[in-house]
């Protein structure tokens, strides 16, 4: 329970926020998120991504319970949200939100209606309600039906049948709505889907049974109709839940992006507005450590920027006035003022989205296994039922009653109960396994597409590499330089400076005593040490000559004493953990591995060389990446794209299947089929392995369902399928299919990597990083 973060990263995030607030006050920006419940109460929903354990719930809720004026503070751990209600006459919205920041959590306002959350929540609730009603009715009708099958006669039987009708009919009407709606929708577009035979069977069986009950007949199918709905709803709900879980996890990640910007109005005042209110020409203020919210041109300020998420360049770049920045670029060292140059569709992001939408059209053509099965299955079922009806009419010489009964029996028996469960049951087990290993699966179709991949395309920066810079070797550094460098690097936010500090710390160096520390954004840090001026930063600024040949693959930090360079620290983007093993395992499985990067040639060639990858291309534009993937797919290849940047998003959408790390750009995570929260690259191996297994199990389940039909359908056609037989056959096939899905747990081998930890731990690590 001690895992709650009050870490420096969270603190610094809050500091910058408080800074933004200090200028113009948050109230003006907050108003759009605050809901007025009634005269005396207001509410707001906050997203608090760092909540991850019971201790966090308690800290936040008890923090609020001490305050006067707060009427409700409830943390939702599953969705990492905090919903607050307060009396505005006693406490202000700004004060309310500051509480959670002061507790050490980074919180942002969150609008439920924006993420389309309410709709999907409504669908889930409706399915669950229908499932409950169907479950209740199925249990009771079954109880009554068992008595009839056990030999209840005369009055008792009729009483039981009437009771069954009384329970089953309203339940069928209520619980069947999701199926009826989808069937009507399909028919109105002149299509057949699985819901058409389901609806037909349920409605006909209920109507026929009611007719039988009126006419004192012996055989009713109320139990079959309602159990059928119960099983199918279970499958439907599982499918929905899986998608919902991944969707809410992804939408949480999504809402981490900046929703607002600090605008400098004419009189120099700072005001916080939401991104949608920005127009070209406005001047915005971007503090060090913040992401640039829109495309803009630098008006004033000196800083370094990190473009790795946008273009794939791994090294930070020095910034000059007049340079253009794309939305999503990280501002590292100094405050900037930007003129907004484009908003909406005209931005770099807008272009990427356009490319992505075109690329996605190819994917829409993919049909899920279940749909492909339905396309064959549904017409066969209808034809069989019709043939049975006609055959019986002919055989019995016009006995409408017996013929209808046989036809309905065929519809009920063939009804894809097992088929409805076959796919979702397997996929929910598979995505559960993956979730525990730190991979979020967005929907079941992704698992299907992932199962026969033969080409894997990796992006370099942030995917194969961790995006963190590492020093090449620490052996050559003398102690005095190390001590000075450590002292100088302690305060700067520049990634090279932070990386240097980390390396020296792990080497065991102690900082030297320095004073008058100043940072010159874009160049470096300087200070006084024993009466001399020491500098740490860009080599020419420190008084040395830039070494061009090294600057190609490396980034160099130099240390100088009185303008004489005394040490050089070369840095490289480090490989992600497990990158080497993952790539070599993929190659040994006969999978073609390709690296496509927007970075410069030497950096890409270096990584490709380390990983023994032969196929690599550098300097790729988003368009070029998409073209490459589309060509591969046109050549009949099944391509898995693994990437993180904005420039990868269109290719993530174009590929057969795609994965992105959780550190990826928002748009990258949206475009990807799977998002992995673990810090290493083994996620790719796991996902491919489990996708393969799950597709095998889906096919096995289909085989089981078909085998069941081969036995049951002839019985139904010949009229031997009594209601009792239908009930047993249906339930047993559903149970077999579900058990087969659960077998996936044993089939998937435990991970071989030594550093494997539970998914939960990975997630909490992620939390701290955030």
């Amino acid at each position: 329970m001690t895992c709650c973060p009050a870490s420096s990263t969270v603190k610094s995030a809050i500091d910058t926020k408080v800074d933004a607030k200090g200028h113009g006050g948050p109230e003006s920006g907050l108003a759009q998120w605050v809901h007025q419940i009634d005269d005396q109460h207001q509410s707001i929903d906050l997203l608090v991504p760092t909540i991850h354990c019971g201790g966090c719930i308690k800290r936040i809720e008890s923090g609020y319970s001490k305050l006067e004026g707060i009427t409700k503070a409830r943390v939702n751990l599953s969705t990492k949200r905090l919903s607050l209600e307060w009396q505005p006459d006693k406490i202000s919205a700004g004060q309310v939100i500051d509480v959670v920041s002061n507790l050490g959590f980074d919180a942002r306002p969150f609008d439920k209606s924006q993420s389309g959350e309410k709709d999907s929540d409504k669908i889930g609730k409706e399915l669950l309600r229908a499932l409950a009603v169907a479950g209740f009715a199925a249990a009771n009708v079954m109880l009554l039906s068992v008595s009839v099958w056990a030999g209840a006669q005369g009055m008792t039987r009729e009483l039981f049948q009437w009771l069954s009708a009384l329970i089953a009919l309203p339940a069928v009407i209520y619980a069947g709505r999701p199926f009826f709606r989808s069937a009507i929708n399909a028919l109105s577009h002149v299509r057949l889907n699985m819901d058409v035979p389901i609806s037909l069977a349920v409605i006909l069986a209920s109507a026929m049974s009611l007719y039988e009950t009126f006419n004192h007949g012996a055989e009713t199918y109320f139990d079959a109709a309602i159990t059928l709905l119960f099983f199918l709803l279970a499958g439907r709900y599982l499918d929905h839940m899986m998608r919902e879980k991944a969707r809410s996890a992804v939408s949480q990640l999504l809402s981490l992006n900046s929703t607002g910007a600090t605008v400098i109005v004419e009189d120099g005042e700072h005001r916080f507005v939401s991104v949608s209110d920005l127009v070209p020409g406005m001047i915005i203020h971007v503090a060090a450590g913040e992401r640039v919210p829109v495309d803009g041109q630098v008006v004033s300020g000196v800083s370094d920027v990190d473009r790795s998420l946008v273009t794939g360049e791994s090294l930070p770049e020095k910034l000059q006035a007049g340079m253009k920045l794309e939305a999503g670029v990280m501002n590292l060292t100094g405050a900037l003022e930007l003129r907004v140059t484009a908003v909406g569709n005209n931005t770099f992001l807008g272009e990427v989205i356009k490319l992505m939408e075109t690329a996605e059209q190819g994917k829409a053509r993919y049909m899920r296994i279940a749909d492909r099965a339905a396309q064959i299955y549904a017409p066969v079922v209808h034809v069989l039922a019709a043939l049975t009806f006609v055959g019986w009419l002919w055989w019995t010489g016009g006995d409408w009653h017996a013929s209808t009964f046989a036809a309905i029996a065929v519809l009920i028996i063939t009804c894809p109960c097992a088929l409805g469960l076959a796919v979702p049951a397997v996929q929910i087990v598979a995505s559960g396994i993956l979730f525990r290993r730190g991979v979020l699966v967005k929907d079941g179709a992704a698992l299907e597409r992932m199962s026969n991949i033969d080409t894997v395309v990796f992006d370099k920066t942030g995917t194969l590499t961790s995006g963190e810079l590492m020093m090449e070797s620490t052996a050559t550094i003398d102690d005095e330089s190390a001590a000075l460098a450590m002292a100088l690097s302690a305060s700067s936010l520049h990634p090279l400076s932070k990386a240097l500090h980390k390396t020296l710390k792990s080497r065991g160096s102690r900082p030297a005593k320095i004073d008058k520390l100043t940072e010159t954004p874009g160049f470096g840090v300087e200070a006084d040490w024993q009466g001399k001026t020491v500098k740490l930063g860009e080599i020419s600024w420190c008084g040395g000559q830039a070494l061009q040949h090294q600057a190609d693959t490396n980034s160099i930090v130099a240390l100088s004493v009185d303008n004489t360079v005394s040490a050089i620290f070369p840095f490289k983007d480090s490989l992600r953990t497990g990158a080497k093993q993952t790539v070599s395992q993929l190659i040994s499985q006969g999978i073609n591995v390709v690296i496509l990067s927007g970075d410069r040639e030497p950096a890409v060639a270096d990584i490709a060389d380390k990983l023994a990858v032969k196929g690599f291309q550098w300097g790729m534009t988003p368009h070029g990446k998409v073209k490459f993937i589309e060509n591969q797919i046109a050549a009949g290849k099944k391509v898995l794209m693994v990437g993180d940047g904005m420039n990868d998003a269109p290719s993530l959408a174009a590929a057969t299947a795609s994965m992105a790390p959780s550190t990826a750009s928002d748009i990258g995570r949206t475009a990807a089929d799977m998002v992995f929260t673990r810090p290493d690259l083994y996620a790719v191996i796991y996902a491919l392995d489990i996708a393969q297994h799950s597709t095998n199990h889906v096919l096995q389940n289909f085989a089981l369902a078909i085998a069941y039909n081969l036995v049951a359908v002839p019985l139904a056609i010949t009229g031997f399928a009594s209601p009792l037989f239908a009930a047993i056959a249906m339930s047993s096939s559903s149970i077999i299919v579900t058990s087969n899905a659960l077998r996936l747990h044993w089939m998937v081998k435990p991970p071989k990597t030594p550093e494997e930890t539970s998914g939960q731990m990975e997630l909490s690590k992620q939390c701290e990083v955030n």
Partner: protein
Amino acid sequence: MTSLLILIPVALFLGLLGLAAFLWTLRSGQFDDLEGAAERILFDDDEDQPDQVNFESEKDT
């Protein structure tokens, strides 16, 4: 037969009661945060007395 006339309505009533209870829990949001519920059960405190709680819990978190 007469026993059935009592027992069946009783059984149905109890079943409906269960259904109604489930629908109520669903509507009152008790299924909204299953992970949170799993954690909350471990809290020692009684939510009716928040002041005592905070004092105790702050030490071990």
